[in-house]
């Protein structure tokens, strides 16, 4: 039956569809207004300063970018690994991945000091910079994603789907590795100077991407009054468990290796016991990993599979963002140790202290604007292109 899938565009049938559209449009407007205000007044209206130069917009942008890479899971599993019950969501998976990436990149660009100079970034490259390579990785992801989608949409090109899927799969791994390397290559900052950040980001992308895909899929199926495929539901639950374990593994190894190196002790003390310890332990470890893991492993009969997966995904997303907050903000909140063996008695620019960071409303506005734009773009693609399977209801459906 799966081989004879027919796809259609998203038909607006529920009031909640229009409410989501309106909600997203309002937040895109708020995001746009925030960006314009920041562009006009400067970053002085944000909570950022010369200690914390990458703030909340970076947390949103990186969350969206790693989620984009992970959202491609559905398509990769269907095309590259030949898991047939993922085929119905393959097209949606690619569309969602592209939309999330555009949302993330827009936040990143609008948070630049000079977003009007984007053309400079697009035409002048320093190939020693991993940032430059990432520009190619991001634009390349969009091009490959569009090509992949085209191969899936066009019946006569369906035979190229496997090739496109393989290239997209390799590209997304490189992309997330590259994003991790942006942080991992910063040798001057003890909290970031680690090659482990690259695989950590890959694991994070698998968790966040799967989580976003699950939530979007459940929302769409509710709108279309379609029951989610039981086989798919089971598989997604198992996958999320493995991805969460991988994330926990890399996170633990990252901190253990840091604890082994005495020059990183101050940073680790701050991350694990200091200012951001609550975000790390409660946000990343408890909410982001342990709670969803226990929900998915010790399955309670009173909670439906669908609800359990939705809650776990939501928690995984929150926890993933908390981890990125700790990585991005935490690495800047700890003093850079310029003088080993010496104590800084006084500094005219806070060399000894832990700078405070309070994100402003403009940063929240820009960040949520990016999320809303990604959603809006995804809904637009679903509206104009036949990306949703028509026969989902007739697949093996869960009794719920």
């Amino acid at each position, binding site marked *: 039956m799966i081989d004879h899938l027919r796809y259609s565009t998203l038909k607006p049938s529920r009031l909640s569809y229009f409410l989501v559209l309106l909600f997203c449009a309002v937040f895109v407007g708020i995001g746009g207004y925030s960006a314009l205000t920041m562009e006009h007044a400067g970053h002085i209206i944000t909570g950022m300063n010369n200690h914390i*130069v990458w703030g909340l917009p970076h947390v949103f942008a990186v969350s969206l970018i790693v989620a984009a890479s992970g959202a491609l899971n559905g398509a990769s599993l269907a095309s590259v690994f030949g898991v047939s019950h993922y085929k119905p969501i393959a097209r949606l998976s690619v569309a969602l991945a592209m939309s999330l990436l555009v949302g993330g990149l827009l936040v990143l660009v609008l948070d630049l000091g000079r977003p009007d100079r*984007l053309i400079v970034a697009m035409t002048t490259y320093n190939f020693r910079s991993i940032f430059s390579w990432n520009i190619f990785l991001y634009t390349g992801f969009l091009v490959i994603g569009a090509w992949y989608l085209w191969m899936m949409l066009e019946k006569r090109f369906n035979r190229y789907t496997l090739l496109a899927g393989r290239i997209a799969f390799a590209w997304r791994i490189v992309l997330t590795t590259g994003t991790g390397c942006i942080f991992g290559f910063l*040798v*001057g900052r003890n909290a970031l100077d680690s090659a482990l950040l690259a695989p950590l980001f890959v694991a994070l992308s698998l968790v966040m991407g799967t989580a976003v895909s699950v939530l979007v899929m459940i929302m769409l199926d509710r709108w279309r009054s379609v029951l989610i495929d039981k086989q798919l539901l089971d598989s997604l639950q198992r996958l999320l468990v493995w991805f969460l374990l991988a994330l926990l593994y890399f996170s633990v190894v990252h901190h253990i290796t840091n604890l082994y190196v005495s020059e990183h002790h101050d940073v680790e003390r701050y991350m694990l016991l200091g200012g951001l310890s609550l975000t790390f332990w409660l946000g990343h470890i408890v909410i982001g990993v342990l709670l969803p893991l226990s929900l998915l492993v010790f399955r309670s009969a009173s909670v439906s599979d669908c609800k359990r997966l939705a809650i776990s995904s939501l928690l995984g997303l929150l926890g993933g963002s908390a981890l990125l907050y700790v990585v991005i903000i935490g690495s*800047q909140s700890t003093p850079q140790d310029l003088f080993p*063996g010496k104590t*800084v008695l006084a500094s*005219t620019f806070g060399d000894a202290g832990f700078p405070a960071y309070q994100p402003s409303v403009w940063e929240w506005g820009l960040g949520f604007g990016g999320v809303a734009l990604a959603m809006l773009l995804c809904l637009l693609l679903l509206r104009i292109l036949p990306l949703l399977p028509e026969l989902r209801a007739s697949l093996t459906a869960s009794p719920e």
Partner: protein
Amino acid sequence: MLPNKAQAARRLFLQRLGVFSAATALPALLSSTVDAQSSTKGVSSAQRWGLLIDTSKCASGCDACVRGCHEEHGINSTGNEHTDAQWIRKIDLQNNLSGQKSSLPMMCQHCESAPCVDVCPTGASFKRADGIVLVNKHTCIGCRYCVMACPYKARSFIHEPISDQKSWAPRGQGTVESCTLCVHRIDAEKDQQPACAVACTDEAHSAILFGDLNDPDSDIVKAMANQPASQVRSDLQLNTGVRYVKL
């Protein structure tokens, strides 16, 4: 299934979208690349400008170098030290073992292998042939990756509009800046001393010595021959242009 007419319209839309995207991507395909460590016409690598800072002469509580730098480059405090530009700052230290106290100015160390130059996506952060690390204000996009990469916390992002600029020290909201080693003075070839060194001498401390690190007859090289000078974060092997005595 959509009717044929709608399908045809969608195909036309997608075709046009493809043509538009290709046209937009064309500039990127024809783009130029920049070298991370570019040379500059008119400046010779025969020289390498640097500073030697004697921490035993630098007085705690004295910020003449900071004031001198700010006056020279038109850097005015906005009242918020966390967002103010910090081209040069004073740090007081105490040795954990001996308890010995010292004071020193910290600024861009004008590294030979500058991390800020390596990470800059547009090549706006660049190193001149004579070793001075600068920011091209016209191509800096304000991504702040160089601020993240600098091991010395020597770079500042400009958070708000700037007024009363000096013609020799152009600055701009939304871009990054740092110590230029008073490149305008060096290029003018009349008073080659950077403002911080002049201010320190005027204060009778003479803790900052400026000169050509490639010239064996220069005062700076002679001074370095007489007393060991070290680099801050020498473990990173960046070969800094700023060295410290009795660090």
